[in-house]
């Protein structure tokens, strides 16, 4: 086991820079998730840690040892690929045993370690099968088995669940998490799915356009997003954003988003009157009541546990999720009351309050 440190890591392909100086430190035994939209550089970063891509500038250290010029096989890491990258011509057993065989382990040691991994992952009945003869979830388990037999310092996961169906994805998510709690090996997990990130991570690194937007625990990012990007990326359904201007209404500060519509601000917020801002409200922080902002219902989507209401507010979309059941019809006018609001700078996207 080891800690991993990225210091001012940069990557460019020719003249195109894709990672612009990333600093992350991952503690020993931590489960760190790199999350961001596609093309944000998260997979490239992971591949640099693995040694599959060269590091253009900066430094990567695993267990205190700088690995910039160390070959992948010398880094003592294991990786689970998005397409699993199982050797199709080898049985499940041989796939898992391959690295041990190359390392010159004895037949007895290979057998006991493959058996141990197969038992953890429930693959004992499939050891003599070929990858073609397995379901997606089983292949995923073999890919993890191949990683854990080596007892590496660090596990790397490159979007390992994106080829699975929704139900299996939730199940494997829990399994990977349980596996980590059992083995306590430092893990770095790349995904574009913020729910995966929220549910699995000890620490989330939100990336966008080759830069780190924010690093923190799942709830920290949810409660205190540093900027518009993180606020919009973390949380599902996504946060509502409405541009407006700070104004004084009935003696208290509020944000006027359109004529006659004002989002009241908490008393402790200090901000200049007349300033242009973006106000953000999470759908789950809106409640239906007799007072609040008047909106028009467009679509109602009941999911059983809660109901999502899509509304229009002076031409802008606003979204609410409520636990109680309502019989709203499209075109009906209702009032939504915001319980918690965030303020962002419209130009820089930085959080104001």
């Amino acid at each position, binding site marked *: 086991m080891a800690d991993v440190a990225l210091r001012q890591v940069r990557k460019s392909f020719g003249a195109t820079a894709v990672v612009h100086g990333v600093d992350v430190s991952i503690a020993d035994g931590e489960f760190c998730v790199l999350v961001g939209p596609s093309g944000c550089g998260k997979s490239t970063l992971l591949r640099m840690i693995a040694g599959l891509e060269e590091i253009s500038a900066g430094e990567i250290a695993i267990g205190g040892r700088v690995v910039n010029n160390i070959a*992948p*096989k010398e880094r003592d890491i294991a990786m689970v690929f998005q397409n699993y990258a199982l050797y*199709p*011509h080898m049985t499940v057993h041989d796939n898992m045993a391959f690295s041990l065989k190359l390392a010159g382990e004895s037949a007895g040691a290979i057998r006991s370690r493959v058996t141990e991994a197969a038992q953890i992952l429930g693959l004992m009945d499939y050891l003599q099968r070929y990858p*073609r003869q397995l379901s997606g979830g089983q292949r995923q388990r073999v890919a993890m088995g191949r990683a854990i037999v080596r007892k590496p310092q660090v596990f790397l996961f490159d979007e390992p669940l994106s080829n699975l169906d929704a139900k299996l994805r939730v199940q494997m998510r829990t399994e990977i998490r349980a596996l980590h709690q059992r083995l306590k090996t430092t893990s770095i997990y790349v995904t574009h799915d913020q729910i995966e990130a929220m549910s699995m991570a000890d620490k989330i690194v939100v990336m966008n356009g080759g830069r780190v937007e924010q690093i923190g625990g799942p709830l920290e990012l949810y409660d205190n997003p540093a900027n518009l990007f993180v606020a919009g990326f973390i949380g599902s359904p996504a946060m509502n954003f409405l541009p407006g201007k700070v104004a004084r209404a009935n003696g208290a500060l509020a944000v006027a988003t359109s004529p006659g519509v004002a989002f009241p601000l908490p008393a402790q917020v200090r901000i200049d009157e007349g300033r242009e801002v973006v106000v953000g409200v999470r759908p789950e922080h809106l409640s239906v009541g007799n007072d609040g902002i008047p909106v028009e219902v467009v679509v109602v989507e009941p999911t059983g546990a809660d109901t999502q209401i899509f509304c229009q507010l002076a031409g802008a979309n606003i979204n609410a999720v409520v636990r109680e059941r309502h019989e709203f019809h499209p075109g009906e006018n209702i009032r939504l009351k915001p319980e918690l609001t965030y303020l962002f700078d419209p130009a820089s996207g930085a959080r104001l309050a």
Partner: protein
Amino acid sequence: MHRLLDNRNVLGVLFMLPAGALLLVFLTYPLGLGTWLGFTDAKIGRPGEWIGAENFTYLFGDSVARLSLFNTFFYTIVASILKFALGLWLALLLNKNLPFKAFLRAIVLLPFIVPTALSAIAFWWMYDSQFSVISWTLTKMGVIDGYIDFLGEPWLARFSTIAANVWRGVPFVAITLLAGLQTVPPSLYEAASLDGATEWQKFWYVTLPMLTPIIAVVMTFSVLFTFTDFQLIYVLTRGGPLNATHLMATLSFQRAIPGGALGEGAALATSMVPFLLAAILFSYFGLQRRAWQQGGTDK
């Protein structure tokens, strides 16, 4: 009539008729006739009588026919091994990120595009006892004293014809294996590097097994083409010297047309069929069908 034409089965037969007729007239009939001739004592200009296996027993005792069998095997085995080795090596090279990749790949195909007879004539010149460019170069470099008579000595002629055949056959093997190499997912190599494999181990444990199906196909074809080779030999040596380069195909032609013994030539050609069938069956059962390529069933 209209009802009949709407029937899928009737239509199917109707559409297959032209192809079926072509195959029948140009493939089945000549093959059948050739086999039939092999069991007769036909001569040119004289229809033969059925004589059973007499031609075959005669050929079995004929030292030239036996030599041609040996030559064919030697030619096929040596040329196929060389074509495979060189083709694989070239395919691996072309699979790397080389400058002018498309251009190089096109160049490699050249020997395959040139008509066999033309390239054979070029080789004939290169192997000529007086004007050989190879001998000339080697004497100028001081490697040898006198000119080499490439096509004049039995073993030298065998190896010279094999070299010409390999030159012609390598592009087919190389380009087909290159296509096969490109279907191997790059992530397998990445996984292998993380598993600790050296470049050689990646080749041995990943590339080669992944290529076996396509190797089986391409080598079957290559063996069939080489075993039945005619043009190259006929232009270069006509089977000489001392029948040292006579293959079964060239000897069969020699006996049947210039020699006039149609039945004997046909018997010689027919006796190639079992060897070819054996080669196909070997590759089909030995190499092509691997359990890992078939999904689904338990083992």
